[in-house]
């Protein structure tokens, strides 16, 4: 199986879907001539031309709305936000138009579109540009929210997202674009809403999504050296959440730590904890712990930034605490 970067896996998905269905087109800032701010769309303009790979001005609200209009008339737009931080300018279109169009039109207008772009913190981009938005978006009925953590998942999930008739918010880990992994060749899809057990163990369940999947796997490796084997449940999709996969694991391990990149309050982890307490109350041997970004805007200073982010040492401490080892 070829090893690809997360970026190239996404490009493969885009390219294959552009070939497969001529209603699909990509639109956003710098996606065409500049080959994409993060080079995800590199070469696509040459292959598909300016009608399918469309550069826009710096007008998030506008081109998100154009995308919604084109979906209403039967196209399948993919709207790239240069980062999800800029998508806040278009949030009214995403939340009020895309998410609710099918409902408010009495089923007349499906919304087969994807909003995608980098999400989450990077390195020293400070408070406005280092943010993980999934809990905001997952809050909205009508949206599906996808957060792939590996190249293989990125490709399979993006293809499913493009083929879905609902608006899908596709959050790519900004720090994941250069990560590598084995990616199956050719056409395959991964169903939205299905989690993946990335590592098996019996001592504790770590629930993670997006970039934190890699952190969870680091934690699993480190703990394995101490003889502690943990389950790593990769949510892959945070709306809908695969409750059964989480419950199956927690029923086995009796303990859970939820790891996420975003802030604590009303975070995805809060929702996961809620599901765990409802589904697995009698299986819990300790309170479920969460590891998340500190409750502050992301600091610029490198040392403070590192301290604010969730990381492997914090997650290891949490696992040990729920196992009563710390």
């Amino acid at each position, binding site marked *: 199986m070829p090893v690809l970067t997360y970026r190239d896996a996404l490009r493969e998905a885009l390219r294959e879907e552009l070939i497969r269905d001529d209603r699909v087109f990509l639109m956003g800032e710098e996606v065409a001539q500049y080959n994409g701010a993060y080079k995800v769309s590199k070469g696509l303009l040459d292959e598909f031309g300016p009608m399918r790979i469309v550069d826009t001005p710096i007008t998030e609200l506008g081109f998100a709305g154009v995308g919604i209009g084109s979906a209403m008339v039967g196209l399948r737009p993919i709207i790239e936000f240069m980062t999800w931080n800029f998508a806040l300018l278009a949030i009214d279109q995403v939340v009020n138009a895309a998410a609710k169009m099918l409902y408010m039109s009495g089923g007349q207008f499906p919304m087969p579109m994807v909003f995608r772009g980098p999400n989450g913190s990077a390195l020293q981009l400070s408070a406005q540009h280092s943010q993980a938005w999934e809990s905001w978006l997952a809050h909205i009925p009508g949206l599906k929210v996808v957060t792939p953590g590996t190249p293989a998942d990125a490709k399979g999930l993006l293809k499913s997202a493009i083929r879905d008739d609902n608006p899908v918010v596709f959050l790519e880990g900004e720090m994941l674009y250069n990560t590598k992994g084995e990616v199956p060749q050719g056409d395959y899809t991964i169903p939205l809403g299905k989690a993946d057990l990335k590592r098996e163990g019996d001592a504790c369940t770590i629930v993670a999504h997006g970039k934190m999947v890699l952190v969870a796997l680091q934690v699993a490796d480190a703990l394995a050296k101490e003889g502690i084997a943990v389950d790593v449940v990769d949510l892959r999709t945070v709306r809908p959440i695969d409750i059964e996969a989480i419950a199956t694991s927690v029923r086995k391990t*009796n303990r859970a*730590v939820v790891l996420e990149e975003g802030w*604590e*309050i009303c975070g995805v*982890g*809060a929702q996961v*904890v*809620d599901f765990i*307490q409802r589904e697995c*109350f*009698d*299986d*819990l*041997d*300790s*309170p*479920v*712990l*969460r*590891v*998340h970004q*500190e*409750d*502050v805007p992301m600091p610029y200073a490198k*040392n*403070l930034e*590192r*301290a604010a982010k969730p*990381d*492997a*040492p*914090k997650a*290891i*401490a*949490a696992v*040990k*605490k729920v196992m*009563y080892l*710390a």
Partner: protein
Amino acid sequence: MATKVVMEALSPTMEEGRLVKWLKNEGDAIKSGEVLAEVETDKAIMELVARGDGVLRKRLANEGDASPVGTILAVIAPAEENIDALIAEAGAAAPAAAAPAAPAESQGEASTPQQEASQPSEGGGAAVAAPPKPPPSASGGDQAGAAQTPPAPSPPSPAPAQPRSGGNGRQRTSPLARRLASDRGIELSLVRGSGPGGRIIKRDIESAVASAAARPKPAAAAAAPAKRIISREGDFQDVPLTQIRKTIARRLSESLGPIPTFYLTAEFDMVRASEMRAAFKELGEEFKVSFNDIVLKAVANALADHPEVNAHWMGDRIRHFNRVHVAMAVAVEEGLITPVIFDADRKSLPDISREARHLAELARNRKLTPEQYTGSTFSVSNLGMLDIEHFTAIINPPESAILAVGAVEDKPVVVDGTISVRQRMRVTMSCDHRVIDGATGARFLQALRRLIENPLLLVL
């Protein structure tokens, strides 16, 4: 990380314990689970085990001292750790010792407020009121990585910290441990919690199960006769009270005090039992059984067939047990204690004999653990060895009956129209009329008579 050694509640009713003997000296290396000291409870002399690894740095209690539950008795810590603050705290806490939860809470959690602020939050709550911690000790760092964490602002405490448990010391138990205890028939009040604040967690139940399994267990116990087993699904069934039963309970209680007791006396012929004893004795010392053993076994089998007697009065319902745990009253120097033969109906007569002797010896040496003297479903009291022909025993609530057993004596008896001398034994069952009616008790004694007068039935 320092661990406080506290006076633990080693029996369900213990409020204070006396430190009998230190088994470790200051400076000794200690591993979690090692026995540190012997503690005399209200019932027995028990072992106090370490809850953490390290060096026994400081013993704060002297042999002979009596201390309330929760008092800090010693500190285990790494050799280099500064424990002055802990010792100071122990000094401050010792006289009061009114809040046993507090010392236990910080067991193994000696983190500074700064570290606490950067700890992961529990259960989705925003910085859920961590109880105020003791002043920061110079404890070793927290887990990996925490040391890198900057001093994040301490989250404001949303409300004054509430005591974790009520004045009655409500036991904290993880949901899983609660379920496992229920599944495995473990009485939670007898389990010591090793989680934060004494929370009972899965491993505590597992070790309780293991120690129950480690009780003297005769090899033949596995080959239990199945025919008397009424139901093994769950350990008991609670029967809701009918109106008539409620009325009987209320009226009888009003007329005769807390337990409306009545007595049923019967005299059993013991000739065959005596012959069986002699036959067993010929087989060798390991098969030796006493009359009391025969009675215990017969009572157990009869109870298995009569769950209406193998019952507890629970106030608002009657609990019929599906398992038979027979307590035997043993006189000890200080009074009386009732060790329990668990699942006695499923054990062979020689096994019961061995177990009874072992338990009696432990009782006399005050070595019984709470698991060994609680959990009975019915009790037997025998004063036959003291030449008492007949007496009545007092019910041990919430049990609904107790059998008082007298001496086996030669008596003139009419057999087939002629007077002959037979070995006879009188038993008297004290019955709680709220649970057991006269006829119910009589039927039980009838069953008991059949077993004791035909003791071969006990070896089927």
